[in-house]
């Protein structure tokens, strides 16, 4: 499985294809520090005003900030609003 993914990564890099379209990865769009759009998520793990953790194909995506709200949530994307201070991936290599 690992070998297959590596081959696909190399192919995407070689052919200069857009990774977010070809690969099963998350696309994160940040609008200043007030809005974050996370596409291709798998669900919500934790939701508090200071921290939102989402399940993503790469593992978990932790977003930290203040007064965090979920602007909208659908199977395709989550729109987070509030003051975003940072984000990081945890439990990497889970796929």
């Amino acid at each position: 499985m690992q070998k297959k993914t590596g081959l696909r990564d190399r192919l995407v890099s070689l052919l200069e294809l857009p990774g977010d379209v070809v690969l099963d990865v998350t696309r994160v769009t940040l609008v200043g520090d007030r809005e974050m759009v996370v596409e291709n998520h798998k669900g919500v793990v934790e939701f508090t005003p200071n921290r939102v953790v989402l399940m993503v194909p790469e593992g978990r995506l932790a977003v930290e900030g203040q007064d965090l709200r979920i602007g909208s949530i659908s199977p395709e994307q989550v729109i987070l609003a509030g003051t975003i201070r940072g984000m990081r991936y945890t439990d990497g290599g889970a796929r």
Partner: protein
Amino acid sequence: MLRRLIAFLLGTLRIEVTRGSIERFLNLCLQQGIRLWDIQRLPDKMRATMTVGSFFALRPVTRGSRCRVRILGRSGFPFLAQRLKARPVLLAGLVGCLAALIWAAGHLWVIEVRITGPKHLDPRAVAAVAAEAGLRRGAWRSTVDLARVANHIRARIDEVSWAVIRVQGTRAVIEVVEKAAVVPPNQATCVHLVARKSGVVEQVIPFQGEPMIKKGDIVKPGDTLVECALRYWSGGRPGVVPGSPLPPRQDVARTLVAQASVKALVAYQDYIELPTRREVKTPTGQTESQWVLKWNDRSILLRGKNSPTFASYETASRTYSLGSWRNWKSPVELMIVDYHEVSKRTESVPLAELEQMARTAMQRRLTWLLGPGDTIVRPILAEVTEHGNGFAGIRVTVETLEEISAPLEGSGPVAPVQPPEPEQP
């Protein structure tokens, strides 16, 4: 915007979720396809917004997440309609307001007149004439035919040269251009129309000036077709014996640039000499090839002879090169020349073919001679008149209907014709 509008039409609920696992509640909502938005997390509860239809699908979600859901508020059209249903007077007021708005917006309330020109016209007069055609304050916008009103204004007011009506909301703007003051004609301006070809006049349509010819007249190049003067009888229309023609008008009222359409039948005749014999080349099938390698200005014969051995031949050459790139061109190229032997013989050309060739030549000449509106009246006639010594003389005749008038530059002013002085006894 569209999503908000749809949510308003469907009706939305603000809910509060307590107890249980909030995250699990969200994930189960995702699984069930329930859309939530504006989700706010409080220390021990969560608030979110959803459509009314989705609320009834919440039961398995609440059971699975062990949460309790409470409705905090309702908004949207279904709840608004319910509230209005209980207050019929308010509903009637709203409907009445909407109807009044539509009624008011469908009428013309302001009629404005804008005049361009010397401003001798009174805007009130223009507005009054427009009202005759239906454009008045308070008229239904859809019942006013703007083109008809503009035509009516132009027809009723002589001083108006152009009028148009534009409607902007409940305002109608009548834009009118007033005729400029009459400028006396320049007496020095006098340009005759003369014939530029000989022909028989077929049609005369004078636009300006005094026509000097009529249908059936034969004109030569340079003949005056339309005179650049308008004449009159100084003493009024003279009395004549009934049936006898009126005397010519002599006094010049004013001069102008003559304008007219004068069409005449013009005949062309041409004599063309064509050879009656022609050379025909027939390939024998014998071929020789010559391969030449070209290097800049040098030529190296690779294959074949310097010159072909055939007495008569036709050549066809091909060149092969490495191509070019930008301003670089390959200095080496291979040229292959094929010599095809031909036998020559002469044959006589049928007279019918010669006549057709003469007709084609005349047709080609006419395309340069005729104008856009000119036509060929009868088919081109070609007739062999002389035949011998290897040549045939062909006379080609054609008749066209074409515009023959042309302005005569520098015609100069026309002096009034003085009446003859009475003879002294």
